[in-house]
């Protein structure tokens, strides 16, 4: 557990140090995320050896104090967060187009990393409220880094995020009023299906779905993520929207009484299917490149929602492996897609998708990264998205009565194929290729390609990954 704490403290300490000494170079954050990655890796190794570890903070046991729990899933998430931060920090430091270099991006990204780690580790409802608030504020502070034009979407995002946190807090208050404890496992033992618990869970779910931009409450995401600087939108899409999803999953799979989960599961699954189609349709029609990538986030979260819904509906906990495989594969693919999109947008000088004509000639590596990441979003083998969809499909296809859900997954695949190949096909158009106004930055493009290659080959590494993710579903 001390390694996991170190993985949390390193970025936090560096951020405070950078603020105090007014340091502006990214080397510190790169070093901190590297250190944090190492600690997280060792923590994962430790968890595999000795199993789940818990820590009562300050020595006070659960009903009174706050409890940290390090399961193999949490360790994998810590590693994933550190890796993404490392990659995006290197991009922000070395890419010519990232105007996040001499701004407050560095301390903010350190704080984001620390609050995410705090969220993964904590198992206390109110503590989650504070970490959710931290995430919301950091995200807004980073969005407005790109100047005054990002103020309007940032303000809307902040207001909705605050309202969502208060919905969540009211739910926590109801649960505390009903059971008198705030810890997840104590609640799990004590929870029964009465009206107060149902209302509390409903309120918390509405709050969390709004913060995770899950389908019905996702309208703030495209404007916010596309107006943010490239490095920031990569972090937001890959990580920040996943925090509330983690809490939603833990809440429903552990605390919610059984007969409540059936109906909730059905609603989640239906919302997931609609998210896939609505997100795909919106991504297909938007003229702006970054908005397209943002809508694809909404669509891909539909897969995770579908997995969560079916997991709750049939009480089959191995579906949680599919849920977390989707989250990891989508995170890696989205980082690469946003970095590639940002590079192309900055070099070709226009926000529109139409400006990508002939991009395979003018910016071959960035376009290749976009296409490979898109391939994982569609779920083409041997990518991570494919393994996640494969693990999701297995229980679906076993009994004939579940086949309509498989049809939903098929439609989702075709929808995501539509908007990915809309861009890829356009980029092969050599008729009037948009010439880049100044020479593209090769290093940034290769950097964007790195996570895409990682997610493309994820299937070859899926055996141990599925093992680690499945342990945590208990």
């Amino acid at each position: 557990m001390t390694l996991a704490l170190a993985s949390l403290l390193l970025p936090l300490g560096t951020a405070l140090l950078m603020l105090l000494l007014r340091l502006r170079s990214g080397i510190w954050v790169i070093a901190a995320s590297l250190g944090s990655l190492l600690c997280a890796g060792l923590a994962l190794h430790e968890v595999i050896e000795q199993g789940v570890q818990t820590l009562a903070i300050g020595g006070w046991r659960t009903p009174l104090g706050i409890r940290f729990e390090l399961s193999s899933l949490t360790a994998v998430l810590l590693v994933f967060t550190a890796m993404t931060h490392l990659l995006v920090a290197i991009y922000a430091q070395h890419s010519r187009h990232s105007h996040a270099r001499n701004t407050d991006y560095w301390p903010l990204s350190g704080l984001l990393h620390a609050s995410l780690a705090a969220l993964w580790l904590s198992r206390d409802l109110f503590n989650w409220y504070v970490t959710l608030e931290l995430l919301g504020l950091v995200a807004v502070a980073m969005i407005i880094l790109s100047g005054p034009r990002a103020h309007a979407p940032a303000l809307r995002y902040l207001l909705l995020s605050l309202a969502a946190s208060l919905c969540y807090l009211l739910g926590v208050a109801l649960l505390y009023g009903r059971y008198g404890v705030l810890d997840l496992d104590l609640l799990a033992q004590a929870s029964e299906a009465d009206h107060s618990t149902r209302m509390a869970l409903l309120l918390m779910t509405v709050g969390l779905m709004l913060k995770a931009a899950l389908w019905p409450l996702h309208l703030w995401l495209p404007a916010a993520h596309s107006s943010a600087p490239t490095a920031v939108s990569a972090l937001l899409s890959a990580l920040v929207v996943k925090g509330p999803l983690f809490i939603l999953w833990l809440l429903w799979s552990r605390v919610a009484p059984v007969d409540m989960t059936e109906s909730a599961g059905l609603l989640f699954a239906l919302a997931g299917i609609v998210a896939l189609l609505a997100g795909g349709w919106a991504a297909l029609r938007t003229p702006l490149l970054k908005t397209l990538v943002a809508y694809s986030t909404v669509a891909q979260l539909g897969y995770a929602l579908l997995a969560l819904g079916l997991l709750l509906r049939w009480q089959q906990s191995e579906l949680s492996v599919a849920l977390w495989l989707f989250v990891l594969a989508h995170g890696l693919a989205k980082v690469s897609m946003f970095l590639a999109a940002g590079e192309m947008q900055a070099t070709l000088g226009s926000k529109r998708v139409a400006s990508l004509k002939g991009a395979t000639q003018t910016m071959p590596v960035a376009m290749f990264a976009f296409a490979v990441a898109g391939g994982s979003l569609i779920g083409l083998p041997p990518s991570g998205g494919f393994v996640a969809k494969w693990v999701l499909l297995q229980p679906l296809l076993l009994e004939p009565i579940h086949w309509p859900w498989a049809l939903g997954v098929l439609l989702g695949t075709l929808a995501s194929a539509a908007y990915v190949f809309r861009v890829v096909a356009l980029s092969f158009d050599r008729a009037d290729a948009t010439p880049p106004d100044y020479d593209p930055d090769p290093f940034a493009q290769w950097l964007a390609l790195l996570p895409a290659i990682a997610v493309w080959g994820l299937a070859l590494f899926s055996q141990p990954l599925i093992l680690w993710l499945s342990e945590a579903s208990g």
Partner: protein
Amino acid sequence: MNATWTNLLPLGIVLSSLLPGLLIFTLREEQTRLRVALNLTGVLLKLGLVGLMLWGVARGLEFRFSIPFLPGGELVLQGDALSLQFVSLSTVLWLATTIYAIGYLEDAPLRSRFFGYFSLCVSATVGLALAGNLVTFLLFYELLTLATFPLVVHRGTPQALQAGRVYLTYTLGGGALLLMGVALLHSLTGSPQFSAGGYLLPLLETRTPSLILAFALLVGGLGVKAALLPLHGWLPQAMVAPAPVSALLHAVAVVKAGAFGIVRVVYDVYGVEPVQALGLHLPLLALAAATIIYGSLKALQQRELKKLLAYSTVSQVSYITLGVALMGPIAAVGALAHLVHQGLMKVTLFYCAGNFAETLGVHRIREMDGIGQRMPLTMTAFTLAALGMIGVPPTAGFISKWYLGLGALETGQSGILLVLVLSGLLNAAYFLPLIYRGWFATPKAPWPAAATARAGRPGWRETHWMLLAPTLFTAALALLAGILAGTGFSPLGWSQLIINREFDL
């Protein structure tokens, strides 16, 4: 996985074209010599490795390479008789087409990208052929789609993009269906090794609805690439691609991948008895027959040479599905032999079409009058291949149609015999006028003697040697495959070996 050479050979065959391909991507446009060298080393290396594997299999060695991939389904590359036939076909034709492509794209732009994706395509095809289980087959099937798309849209013109989009909708849709089918079977039995009699027999009674749906999904997914009737729309439109692409990919690699997949599914996944028990072979038979007739009829109405050849491919490939669906051993031999013969003949026809277009700018059939005087050698190759397609002895086409006919009689499907005869007549109806135009019609205007840079006098210097040599080479191969059909190492002999093992005769 003990790393003996028998394990690494299949991987070596796939990598022998993958690694040069990735290297070619990084080359600048003007490094032609290095690119040609990389290409040729890749081709010759693969040829050598395939030869080695052929020698090994003949000596009874077992070639199997596998790494963990999915829970219950590893990534398996295995060299058995059926896969070797398809691998050797695609390797030989890749050699011919590489030389043809180098000649064809002498000073065209973006050649590094072209040859990079070209080698990726071949690696995918070879991987698909060597696939040891359904999951690996699915992996290479999808990679083939991704690798061929950039080649279809290589020219970057609006028509090419439109054709590319149509191509993608069909093939990605097919890929998704295949994925569903493979996932369905995997959920029932996992993905075991392809085995001679198939591994679904025990599930026959308990899981009939799932098996029927899985078969429909698999055939639907594979049917897109095998250009079965409702799913063939992409093939004629993909003719907008450069000639080498249409030659190797749309006559051999992509289309055969679909047909090869159907052969694998029927023989090595389901096995003959379960397919007959479930009565799935009848709709397949009807579909194949309908496609044959439809393809030939549409070919009759075409005015452009490449569109005509495309529709003839649609109908010819369905011969293979027809042979498989007849469920008889002789028909199966005919089908497998046709898989190779059709490849050789069709690639020759596409080379000739490419030569006509590249040298004299002839695209439409009306412009082919008297082309025989200007390009006699290409025209002879064209005639040989066309006669083969019609099924005139002693060409390879006749051999496979003959076996298919015998197979139809053997299984009592006399209606199919009628279909074969009718399609033979239709083939004659649309190929013979071309041959007549080429040799006997008088050209409207005298052929420009030294019009283009590639020009030359009729005979050996009628066009660039790199365009002429592959054409003649494949035409000769088609003829030899017909004449030497009886020998052991001919495509027919090899098919006989496979089917004996399959039906354990």
